């Protein structure tokens, strides 16, 4: 795995999801990440950016989503920062509980946690929330 950092700053439009996915796809291809891991990472990135655009920045195009991908030998670290008020991830209901199976939303964070080895959130003192995700190889 090569050492490489990619940084993006995108306006809060849903198109940011595809732009972020294209950027991470390029990095994963250059790093030789296998297809299965790449599928999960792609999905986690899309879900994290979707959350930043919709829930963090509430599609306010004056607000930005800042994304960084950092590959190093043995790991890929992804950070997605929004300018929203933040949330407590512990309050997100388990989408696999019987009573939540037919809910039409609430699976994004579940996928991020399913496909990445580490997922955590930091509410920055200067404002906004950063989700940090790590995949180890």
């Amino acid at each position, binding site marked *: 795995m090569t050492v490489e950092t990619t940084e993006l700053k995108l306006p809060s439009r*849903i198109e940011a*999801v595809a732009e972020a996915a294209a950027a991470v796809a390029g990095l994963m291809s250059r790093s030789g990440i296998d297809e299965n891991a790449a*599928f999960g990472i792609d*999905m986690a990135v*899309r*879900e994290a950016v*979707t959350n930043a655009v919709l829930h963090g920045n509430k599609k306010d195009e004056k607000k930005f989503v800042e994304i960084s991908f950092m590959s190093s030998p043995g790991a890929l670290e992804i950070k997605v920062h929004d300018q929203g008020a933040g949330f407590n991830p512990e309050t997100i209901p388990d*989408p*696999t509980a019987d009573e939540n*199976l*037919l*809910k*039409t*939303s609430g*699976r*994004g964070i*579940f*996928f991020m946690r*399913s496909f990445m080895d580490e997922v955590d959130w930091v509410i920055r003192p200067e404002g906004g929330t950063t989700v940090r995700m790590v995949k180890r190889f």
Partner: protein
Amino acid sequence: MAELNISERQAGDVTVLDMDGKITIGEGSVALRTAVRRMLEEGKKKILLNLAGVGYIDSSGIGELVSSYTAINKDGGQLKLLNLTQKLQDLLTITKLLTVFDVYENESEALSSFK
């Protein structure tokens, strides 16, 4: 080219929607929602979604499948799924939605399962 192409065919009283593309937030999810709403407006309540050509789905797309399922059930109809790709099957497994959806690998079996 649209993100999700949906073509409709009739097999007896079952409407088969052959889907090709991605069911993701935005265009793909909206295309699925629009197609299912149109089916219900036309009184077509037995719907088989052929997902053989759907190589990618996100949480929004999965939410849209659930939404379609509940909308059709509420209207007294049935929605079943055909030809899941391995990736989609994996996603429905980890979300436990394989316990909700009626899923088939064979079209004639799927068609004969409709009541």
